[in-house]
């Protein structure tokens, strides 16, 4: 049974090689932040987190999801801090007792992106609800996130404000993709559709095809980001001190300046507005 013995030795060697190499461990001191795809994919966190880590030694691990999912993840206790952008959903999260306190951090704005050919003739305007009404009337293709994200919630609010009852008029023109901002933009680019996007993701998005900004500057397109510490009373393992240190830093003068400093091609992506 020499062969059997030899196979055991070979297997043991393989095991030693794969298992003994330790997983590359970053800092032992870390917090988990559930956040949105817009903050991660726009590159903001890549800019902010190293500054914070250099100062405090706390590594921040970001899981990027839609706002709805990010809050659900925190409800299950899988995050220490949430950093999202849907005020109504955030306040509900606090009211349910899952969060300690909501603090505003920064804002940017949503934009209506559409094809350069502009089939619905809405380009150049400032009135977002008027533009949505026109798109619906023209049955021009419109891509929706449809994923319970902050941007999706904003889109639904705007349709409502425009007096369009989506459930009644939804048709082939309205494409509910159930995907993140980037994938939804990819879809819109490939079918030349209109889409509501956050400016940060749009600025960092590379596969624009024939898309361009159609409507911007309406004050209803305001996009506020908030940060919340997950309630340690609900989830005792929450890293309260380190999580709070991160929150204190992003709303501090230094953190706020770091946010303002983040630019793509000279354009500022997020505007700090934490309460002093």
């Amino acid at each position: 049974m020499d062969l059997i013995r030899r196979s055991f030795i070979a297997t043991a060697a393989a095991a030693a090689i794969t298992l003994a190499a330790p997983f590359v461990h970053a800092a032992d001191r870390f917090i988990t932040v559930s956040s949105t795809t817009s903050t991660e994919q726009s590159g903001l966190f890549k800019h902010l987190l190293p500054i914070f880590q250099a100062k405090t030694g706390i590594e921040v691990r970001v899981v990027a999801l839609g706002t709805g999912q990010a809050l659900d993840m925190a409800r299950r206790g899988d995050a220490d801090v949430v950093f999202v952008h849907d005020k109504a959903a955030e306040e509900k999260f606090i009211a349910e007792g899952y969060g300690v306190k909501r603090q505003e951090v920064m804002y940017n704005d949503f934009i209506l992106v559409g094809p350069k050919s502009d089939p619905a003739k809405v380009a150049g305007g400032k009135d977002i609800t008027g533009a949505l009404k026109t798109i619906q009337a023209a049955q021009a293709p419109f891509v929706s996130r449809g994923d319970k994200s902050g941007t999706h919630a904003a889109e639904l609010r705007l349709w409502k404000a425009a007096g369009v009852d989506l459930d009644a008029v939804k048709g082939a023109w309205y494409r509910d993709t159930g995907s993140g901002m980037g994938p939804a933009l990819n879809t819109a680019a490939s079918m030349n559709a209109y889409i509501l996007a956050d400016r940060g993701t749009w600025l960092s998005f590379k596969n624009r095809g024939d898309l361009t900004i159609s409507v911007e500057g309406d004050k209803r397109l305001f996009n506020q980001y908030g940060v919340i510490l997950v309630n340690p009373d609900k989830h005792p393992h929450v890293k309260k001190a380190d999580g709070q240190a991160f929150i204190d830093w992003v709303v501090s003068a230094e953190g706020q300046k770091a946010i303002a400093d983040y630019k793509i091609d000279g354009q500022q992506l997020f505007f700090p507005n934490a309460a002093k």
Partner: protein
Amino acid sequence: MSTMSESFATAGRLIVAADPNLLHIVALSLQVSLTAVFLAACLGLPIGAAVAVGRFPGCKSLTVILNGLMGLPPVVIGLLVYLLLSRAGPLGSLGLLFTPTAMVIAQVVLITPIIAALSRQIVADAWRDYEEQLRSLGASTPRAALTLLVDTRFSLSTAVLAGLGRAVAEVGAVMIVGGNIDGVTRVMTTSIALETSKGDLPLALALGFILISIVLILNALAHAVREWAVRRHG
């Protein structure tokens, strides 16, 4: 096809520059998937052999179940493991969610049925040929199963490679249980998904080319080892 050529060029640049970020991602991919394959083989090969040789009630239905489980969507496994490891789940206190260990667990669940089902078929075929001979030598059933596993080892390596291919290529499970955290749980496939999301299709495709090359190299290595072993031990 400008995207294609751009991707090739990007892939070449990334490899030549030995980008430390990329190296880390590649190393983590291999480490997670090779560990998962090793554990899945430890589980799957004996299960496959036992089902092939064993004569216990439910043996036939177990075969059907194993074959069926090969088709499990990674995202479903990801979700199950996520709910298991989530703080609100039964194993939440271990704090394993969003770690490479969680990714290994998900991949083990994903590929054990593949290795078990394929090795069951291989051992069952050998059993048909050698059952009488082994019985006449007085081999007990477990002994026979072990002998057949050793005897068919070269064919079984293909079953293990199939498991490795699936592990290293899947994105659904590791995305959910790993969270695609930069520098911690970001692997090849989740990076590709992320770059696609960012609309950087050339970079996404370049990473895809690198992933394919790595899988090819692993398979070539396995093939070479097998050739060498066949020549040496017949």
